[in-house]
């Protein structure tokens, strides 16, 4: 076995990369995104795998298809991604944090203090 967790399937990584591009504003609402073939070339993956990544975003209504023209960013894509990352990704990270704290006998108060501290440090850095 491999001790470090296997990374996410490549099509999920491609979907997340496209999400980041949308978050960064590199793809605006109603702008055309990369085709499965362009993505396949960028990441050196099978075009079918790239298509799976695109379809994931279509299912989540972040992209829409125009027959024969390609895939385009939906109007609310950016907001939906932000919302999704908050309710899923962040929640999962917090979950893992809490589990690890429990394993180390770190109390809830202690943990919250640690979060405050890190939060302050980050604020300081960005000044």
């Amino acid at each position, binding site marked *: *076995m*491999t001790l470090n*967790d*296997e990374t*996410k*399937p*490549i*099509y999920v990584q491609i979907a997340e990369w496209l999400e980041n591009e949308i978050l960064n504003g590199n793809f605006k609402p109603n702008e055309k995104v990369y085709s499965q*073939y362009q993505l*396949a*070339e960028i*990441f*050196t*993956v*099978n*075009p*079918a*795998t790239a298509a*799976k990544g695109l379809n994931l975003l279509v299912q989540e209504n972040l992209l829409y298809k125009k027959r024969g023209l390609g895939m385009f960013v939906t109007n609310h894509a950016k907001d939906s991604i932000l919302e999704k990352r908050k309710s899923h990704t962040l929640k999962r990270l917090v979950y893992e944090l809490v589990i690890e704290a429990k394993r180390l006998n770190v109390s809830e108060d202690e943990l919250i203090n640690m979060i405050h501290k890190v939060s302050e440090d980050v604020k300081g850095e960005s000044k």
Partner: protein
Amino acid sequence: MTVIRCQNVTKSYGRNKILNNISFQIDKNKITGVIGPNGVGKTTLLRIIAGYIKKTSGEIKVFSEDPFQSLTVSANTIFISDQMMLPPTLTLSEIIKSSSQFYQNFDIDLAQKLFDYFPLKKVQYYDKLSKGMRSTFQAIIEIAARCPLTIFDEPTTGMDTGVRKDFYRALLKDYIAHPRTILISSHYLNEMEDLLEDVLVLKEGKIRLHLSISEMKEWAIGFRGDETTLHKWIKDNKILHTQEIGKYEKYVVLKNDFSEEQLYQARQDGINISFVSPSDLSVYLTDENRGGIDHVFQ
């Protein structure tokens, strides 16, 4: 459209059954990895598909014809194997030139460019090449031939890491521009899995698994935890692989029949859950009855 259709194909040499009653289909313009340990019949299968040898029984159709002694199949298939003799009196560039006459779609321009990139010397002779360079030379011809059915048998043998990466990328780029049906046998599933659409896993002359690479990624799941907790979760799931980790923990690989809900519960129970890479899975699947190298030392 189906390019290859195998039905109950068996190949035996004397009493030794190399391929045992195998059936599968390969669709047009897909890249399929043919995976399995040494001596499992990969090369034999590829040679039958290319029409180099005859099956013992069963039915095989390639481009709707029996590949053995079929002109259609030889004109549309390229398969350069290690066992193939390339003429020792021709230089590499002469071999490329004459290969281009055999294959309708051969892009001699691309062959020359790849040739210069990798650098092989045009006046060199095939017999004088190192193992890795032979593989590179074969790969150049196979890619440039642009055959509707392109077969690679361990194409990266002897290539260094850089050349292997370049080979996969060259193949993918040319495949995107000129789609074709590709079969690749290899031991290195981990480094070519992103290139594949489908995987065909062979075990003891039989097909163990034939599915898409993304299905294969979710086909099995790894559980790590203490034995009592694991037992609660395993029940009648088939265990594909077990490994002891320290005194109290075990790592087991199971077929993934669990729902999201169940996996969540298992995680709550303190089980560490991980994906199993297709490369590891193919080893576990073809290794099932032997129980892994650790058993030798027990």
